[in-house]
């Protein structure tokens, strides 16, 4: 499996392409989408982040800390989110997976999967932030027939807008417009729309960093919800070559048996 600097980029929205930079104007939209999808492949990654919630009134919460570890490849992906601080989220876990182009499924548990898991909605905000499990898998990069819809300028950087749509009525998000920096291969701004073309979330990269591998990834980004509440996210630690310990995805293995017999998932 090709290893890329998907770590920090796992964050959907902050993907850096593993392939050498190519001019976006020369690439077909489908090629860009495919490259973005492949850039997320990783044998293992770990990332830790601070998330500060900013209410529409401007009131800021104390930051929450969480970690995400996972694996991604062409056959699907798995990840585990763990709350680190404060106390109320400490060792609360959300595990999620996607097999192939199938639905994204999630479970939640405390301390350890052995203590019991509950089915979780992958569209629910992670620990009351605007971070959403479903977004972390960035399923839109697999949607058919992406289209180029012009260029834009986000935070002083030029990018090309890709519009991706799905006809699946089961999908909570029906359209995504992502403005990709073709040179650095960063989705500088990603807008997610529902079936009624209502803007549900916007993710904007605010600050980037060069990783050990030399690839550019987002260091700070913000997610604005429909209610105008903003989650400011800062990545403070990461490992793009993370060795996922055995048992990390035990909760998913347990839940798989249930999922194989029922349709609890949201595509």
């Amino acid at each position, binding site marked *: 499996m090709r290893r890329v600097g998907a770590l920090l980029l796992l964050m959907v929205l902050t993907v850096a392409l593993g392939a050498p930079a190519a001019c976006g104007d020369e690439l077909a939209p489908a090629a860009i989408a495919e490259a973005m999808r492949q850039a997320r492949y990783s044998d293992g990654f770990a990332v830790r982040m601070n998330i500060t919630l900013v209410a529409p009134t401007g009131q800021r919460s104390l930051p929450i800390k969480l970690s995400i570890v996972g694996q991604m490849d062409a056959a699907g992906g798995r990840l585990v989110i763990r709350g680190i601080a404060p106390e109320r989220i400490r060792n609360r876990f959300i595990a999620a997976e996607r097999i192939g182009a199938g639905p994204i499924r999630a479970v939640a548990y405390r301390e350890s999967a052995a203590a019991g898991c509950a089915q979780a909605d992958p569209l629910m905000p992670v620990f009351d932030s605007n971070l959403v499990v479903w977004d972390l898998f960035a399923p839109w990069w697999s949607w058919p027939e992406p289209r180029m819809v012009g260029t834009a300028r986000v935070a002083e950087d030029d990018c090309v807008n890709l519009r991706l749509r799905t006809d699946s009525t089961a999908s909570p998000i029906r359209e995504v417009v992502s403005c990709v920096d073709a040179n650095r291969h960063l989705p500088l701004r990603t807008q997610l729309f529902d079936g009624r073309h209502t803007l549900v979330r916007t993710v904007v990269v605010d600050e980037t960093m060069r990783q050990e591998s030399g690839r550019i990834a987002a260091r700070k980004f913000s997610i604005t919800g429909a209610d105008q509440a903003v989650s400011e996210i800062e990545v403070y630690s990461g490992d*793009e070559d*993370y060795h996922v310990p055995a048992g990390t995805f035990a909760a998913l293995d347990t839940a798989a048996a249930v999922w194989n017999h029922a349709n609890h998932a949201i595509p």
Partner: protein
Amino acid sequence: MNLLSLAFGNIYRRPARAGLTVSAISLGIAAVVALTGIAWGFEASWQKANDARGTDLIVTRIASENAMPSPFRAERVQEALKGYPHVRQVVGLLSEMLSVGENSPPVFVFGWASGSYLWDHLKLVAGRWSGADTEPVVVIGSLAAELLHKRVDDTLEIEGQQFRVAGIFESPAVIENGAVVMSLTLAQQILDKPGKVNILNVKLDESAAEADLAAFKARVHDTLPGFVAITSGELVGKNTVVRISKAMSHATILIAGLVGALVVFNTMLMSINERTREIGILLTVGWQRRTIMKLVFSESVILTLAGGLIGIVVGIAITGILEHLEVMRGKIDAVFSPAFLVGVVGLCVLLGIAGGLFPALKAARLRPAQALWHE
């Protein structure tokens, strides 16, 4: 009266203009002094931290550009290095900048292998060292204790886990003084980086010579692809932050130099234009053209030297204030070497000469008969 006192008098006759000129130069020089002192201090502090530990060589990933190189799996490399000649210890180090507690500024959290030589240079000032490798305790630097308002037996929350402060130490390096240190095993556990380190510190025996260091480096290069053995100075030199801060200080020197020279140029040109008749008088009474040039250069150099000396004092003061700011404490350890300060004074003299060159030439080329009639 001599040339110098005449030059001082000429400057003093326009106190507002001279004051503004000196202020502009001193601000530029203050920025140069502060930024360069911080940049060099940053480099020196990291090097001091590495040197204080007694590390002879550091083995890390080739592409490391960060203050602390990215973590890698240590086991294979560590075992290989132990077999090299003259190697006494190969010790892993893991580090991360973390916020410790809800309202505390981020601090460096170091994980050092228990019982290794890395601990030897620290001086315990309160409490005790940590015991077993997995005992959930930390020791903290004296500056960190102050910043975090922690004493022995207080608890610290690091990445969601509680640690008791076993002891407080002092280190020759300010970076370590502002840091939290725990066993490598604990650090790997809380950072979820089992088996990983940022660098491997290699301590050689006393018989190792320069040639042995070179041979060690070559062997790492040849047998451990993707890794490099370097001295602490070389590691710091590769550091992107050090490079950026040095580049910034160089850019500041350039910009401050250009602005300073332009300010002096403007001031001296105005002064020369106002004093055309006086220069005509001096030429008439027998002043040689080179004496006129000396006078103009003296004035411009006095301006830049005054600005420079004030700038040095202001720059050092600014840095001192920054060092004592709550958010910056432990992160800045500015270095002002005498050679650097002499260099700044030299820069000021050059600025004075550069800024005064055209006005001096213009003054010296005046024709006395015409200058005498200038109003």
